[in-house]
């Protein structure tokens, strides 16, 4: 059974590659074009905030839970962000049950970095009692369908869910509920490098060709707030700057979608 599967996979990979060599992506997109993006928020009542993001057939849910807890000793007056990703085996034939592996840890940490470094959440407003109690913000990334580019779908679902989040003051006796203060909209754009080509928003078929990815996260002022080269390859500076330009432009387009959330 395995053998024939592998043959089919090889043939498909060849086909995807031949098309690319003819300047075509198998789904007909331009090289810097995202698949269709859909954002839905507020689907999980039990969470303080939630969103489902679909980029093509890739689907990621993020739920935000908040609870009071201890601050870090070196930031006694700030809330704490805890990001976690579960690559549950429901989402892909290649995911295995078990504790987070290097891929899910990297995924969560790159999402976390974008939110943290853009200062998207005003953490100082999440202090309850300085040095004693602050809000912990759990960002739980739950991947439902992996058709490629989990990184951007996860980052987009995370910021969408945060935009939809209510601080549950009432439940813990701290007065009225409030909207979580979100003051920036970090957006990550991931490109796949295949030979000399740059493929923005790679699908899972394209990811089978190459694992050479780069993710650039930018904020509302087009500043770069996070970069992650991922995959075993040599990146030239020229290619990097080309990717940066594309990423800034694409992030602007996606950010416009976020403004409607």
């Amino acid at each position, binding site marked *: *059974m395995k053998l024939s599967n592998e043959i089919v996979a090889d043939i498909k990979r060849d086909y995807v590659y031949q098309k690319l060599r003819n300047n075509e992506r198998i789904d007909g997109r331009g090289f810097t074009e995202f698949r269709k993006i859909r954002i839905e928020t507020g689907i999980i009542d039990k969470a303080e905030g939630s969103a489902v993001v679909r980029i093509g057939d890739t689907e990621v849910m993020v739920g935000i839970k908040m609870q009071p807890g201890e601050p870090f000793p070196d930031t006694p007056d700030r809330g704490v962000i805890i990001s976690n990703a*579960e690559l549950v085996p429901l989402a892909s034939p290649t995911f295995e049950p078990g504790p987070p592996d290097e891929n899910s840890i990297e995924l969560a940490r790159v999402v976390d970095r974008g939110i943290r470094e853009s200062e998207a959440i005003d953490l100082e407003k999440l202090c309850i009692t300085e040095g004693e109690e602050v809000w912990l913000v759990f960002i739980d990334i*739950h991947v439902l369908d992996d058709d490629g580019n989990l990184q951007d779908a996860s980052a987009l679902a995370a910021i969408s869910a945060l935009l939809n989040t209510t601080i549950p003051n009432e439940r813990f006796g701290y007065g009225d509920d409030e909207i979580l203060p979100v003051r920036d909209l970090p957006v990550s754009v991931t490109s796949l490098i295949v030979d000399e080509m740059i493929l923005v928003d790679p699908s899972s078929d394209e990811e089978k060709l190459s694992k050479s990815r780069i993710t650039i996260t930018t904020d509302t002022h087009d500043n770069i707030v996070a970069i992650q080269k991922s995959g075993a390859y040599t990146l030239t500076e020229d290619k990097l700057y080309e990717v940066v330009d594309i990423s800034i432009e694409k992030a602007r387009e996606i950010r416009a979608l976020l403004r409607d959330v």
Partner: protein
Amino acid sequence: MEDIKLIVDGRRIDGRKPDELRNVKIEAGVLKRADGSCYIEMGNNKIVAAVYGPRSLHPKHLQNPNRVVVRYRYNMAPFSVDERKRPGPDRRSVEISKVSKEAFEPVIIKELFPRSSIDIFVEVLQADAGTRVAGINAASVALADAGIPMKGLVSAVAVGKVDGEIVLDLVKEEDNYGQADIPVATFIRAGKIEGITLLQMDGRVSKDELKKALELAKKGCMEIYRMQKEALINRCRGDEIVE
């Protein structure tokens, strides 16, 4: 806690009659990567199930030379419950996974795929009592969607005792403050209940109450069964339209 009235004038706290199901929405084929999948809403439960297989099973010592190995993983998203759940399996989900797997094994035709596995994954995205039965209902549709040969469908509901009355399909408050919770899964072939494949109970009921509860469970399972079939028919239609 016992003085909370959960049934007033024959109506439950969400307005249902004792023998009424919550709103149920079932959709088959919702995921691309999985071989079969299903999304279900049962009241406020939101659950997605996926099936992979039959596929080759590794490492080899897990294989059975005579039949397919069925695996079932029930999992709750950290944000699916009021207090954030730590990721990973806990004792409750291990037990649920075990009895849910056993609910499907008598129905799946296992001899056809020796040395292989069928993997059933159930992700609870939002929980509001009855997640294991809702998960089973979704898994049943996902198995059919994946084309797994089965002798019938598995349809499941919880019944229970609330304010002394036997009721169908409990919500969280009824589960917490009621007198009994009885999840039941049935094997239904050609519209006929062949028997029970999952049965658990905790609480306190007499034998007569148990009988009454199971009658109600059968009624509920038949309703679920019709909705499962409808979801599968819609799925086929969807396929036709696409083709």
